[in-house]
């Protein structure tokens, strides 16, 4: 997994230690800790994983093994407006693939990437459960249903 190099500021270190403490520094709570840390920082760079490992007294390799196992965890910061295209079966059969292609073209990024200006990042997810509205695209907090490939540009325009 590619990563970015960061330097944690003292208050961030304190924040992470505090989160670990909330979970009693219990290694069994690793996934809950990672959820909370990612919620706070947006992503889980190596330095954070190292700190979590030392707070929970487990090998950092184990933390990395867990982070890379679960698709929810990311080591790269997401865009200001993360775009998620539902790739559940209902959306797939109703043309989600074409929508993804269109977004890729419009933003000139691949799945898992972020635009150079940090504005958008693109990912696919499995079933948001709005199958009646298939295909579904989520941008930031906002959900768009029955998205046609040709409406992609218009939708993106809203966020520019």
């Amino acid at each position: 997994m590619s990563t970015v190099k960061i330097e944690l500021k003292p208050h961030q270190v304190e924040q992470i230690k505090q989160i670990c403490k909330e979970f009693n520094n219990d290694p069994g709570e690793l996934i809950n800790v990672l959820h909370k840390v990612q919620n706070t920082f947006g992503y889980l760079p190596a330095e954070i994983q190292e700190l979590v490992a030392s707070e929970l007294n487990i090998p950092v390799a184990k933390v990395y093994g867990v982070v890379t196992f679960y698709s929810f965890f990311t080591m790269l910061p997401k865009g200001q407006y993360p775009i998620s295209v539902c790739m559940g079966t209902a959306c797939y059969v109703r043309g989600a693939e074409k929508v993804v292609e269109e977004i890729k073209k419009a933003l000139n990024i691949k799945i898992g990437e972020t635009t150079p200006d940090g504005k958008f990042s693109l990912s696919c997810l499995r079933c948001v459960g709005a199958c009646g509205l298939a295909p579904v695209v989520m941008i930031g907090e906002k959900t768009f249903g029955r998205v046609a490939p040709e409406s992609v540009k218009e939708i993106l325009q809203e966020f520019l």
Partner: protein
Amino acid sequence: MSTINITIDNKTLQVDKGTTILKAAQKAGIHIPTLCYMHLEDLNIEHKPAGCRICVVEVAGRRNLAPACATECTEGMVVNTHSLRVLNARKTVMELILSDHPTDCLICPKSGNCDLQSMAHQLGIRKIHYQGEQSTYREDTSPSIIRDMDKCIMCRRCETMCNEFQTVGVLSAVNRGFMAVVAPAFEQNLDHSPCTYCGQCVAVCPTGALTEVDHTNQLIRTLADPAKTVIVQTAPAVRAALGEEFGLPAGTLVTGKLVAALRRLGFHYVFDTDWAADLTIMEEGTELLDRLTRYLNGDKSVTLPILTSCCPAWVKFFEHQFPDLIDIPSSARSPQQMFGSVAKTYFAQMLGIDRKNLVVVSIMPCLAKKYECTRPEFAVDGNPDVDFSISTRELANLIKQSNIDFLSLPDEDFDNPMGESTGAGVIFGTTGGVIEAAVRTAYELYTKKPLPRIDFHELRGLDGIRQATIDFDGLKLNIGIAHGLGNARKLLEDIRAGKSNFHAIEIMACPGGCIGGGGQPLHHGNSTIIKARHKAIYLEDSNKPIRKSHENPYIQKVYQEFLGKPMSEKAHHLLHTIYFDRSKKSFVVTQE
């Protein structure tokens, strides 16, 4: 224990409750092939992730095939281990594994010694029907170990050794699905991790994914350099295992042939690390007595237990994991390094040559020794005390490359002054040996009386953690022994918690001690091999005319002529070392 009746391949038999199909079949003389499974019975290590699925068998009444390694027998079970369905599944799974594995067997360091290769042969794979993308990873080289994960088959044996047995925790499965692989954190190189280079991952790897850094070519070039005087030292455990590479039964001692082979390879002097082991006992034994006496006299600055420090993997382990305890281990260098520093001073002077023209090579059962020679504190002006180390396996390969018919070699003796050793030096090669050697010497130095007996059976054995109390003429000395870093960790945690009542503890990183080292001929999961080497070491000891380190005439000589006495200033300078706190280091490095 209740028994169960089962039928395997039309043979009916009775097995104990809890027996797996694999073990039951073995009992019936049926060999079910396995790949990821590993059971080192005598060392209490069982690894059965049931991941490779090569051992699947057909159990009547079950919908799917069952992995024999993990499925327990049940009453009346009927098993077929080679039905058409089983053979087809087994071959198909094997083809799948091979389809994600390079086929460069011809030039693979593991060729001829690879479990995957033999399994492909055994299953009669002639074509890989399923082809597609292969997973590829960046190659990683460290001072001791090369990771070529393209060859990883995800048996996860290395992960078990690193995490459960050694509790080093450097390796973990990372990513998932087709991209899953075993790697250090952030898929960085091992030298950015707390790896101890114990090499147990290499020792159990069924393929060429984990191998040692090979120094044989460097050795060949060095031996051909007319400007250099090349000397060799060979560790005790090597002589108890090298024969296996030439078809001799495990446990055959080949000391004489080993010396003869090394001479034919072109070494100018063939010495013995056992000699340096005797030297280690002089230093470590003296240090033990010094600390013990001061402790008993109420000196509060002295802490006990004293821990042995011969094993470089163990040293690196406590530097990373127990930095708060770095004052406890003996400051004595390992025999390999004592040999190196004496050779490049005392022996170089004797020959009248500059240390830069004297090359010290070591033959070791160990991969961490390769790393140990590169530690900066073991060099003078950039010139290392030990130039490089090659493993038992590499030596065997070099002997073959040099057209030496090992089995027909005569027995020859080591050279002097650094080749004479005692039985005490020999037993350094196995768990319990270092402390037994130390007891033999410390007893006589402390009590000023001759030992009533030379064999301390209470210190021997293969249990992971052992303890014994030795009566030093009234002083009850509590001794602890651990092999395997996971076992060592338990003793260290007791010390940290103030619960330890040991005076001295011996620790070796590898299962069985150096005889089970990461550089030894591969045991392929057969732990009786390690047991046989263990016995051989004690046999060599009992055959020795002198069995106490302090009685070694060449040890006495080196103190008289050069070092003065144990723990002298000179000895301190050349034979002792300091340890570093490596826990604080961040392992995150940026990679392009």
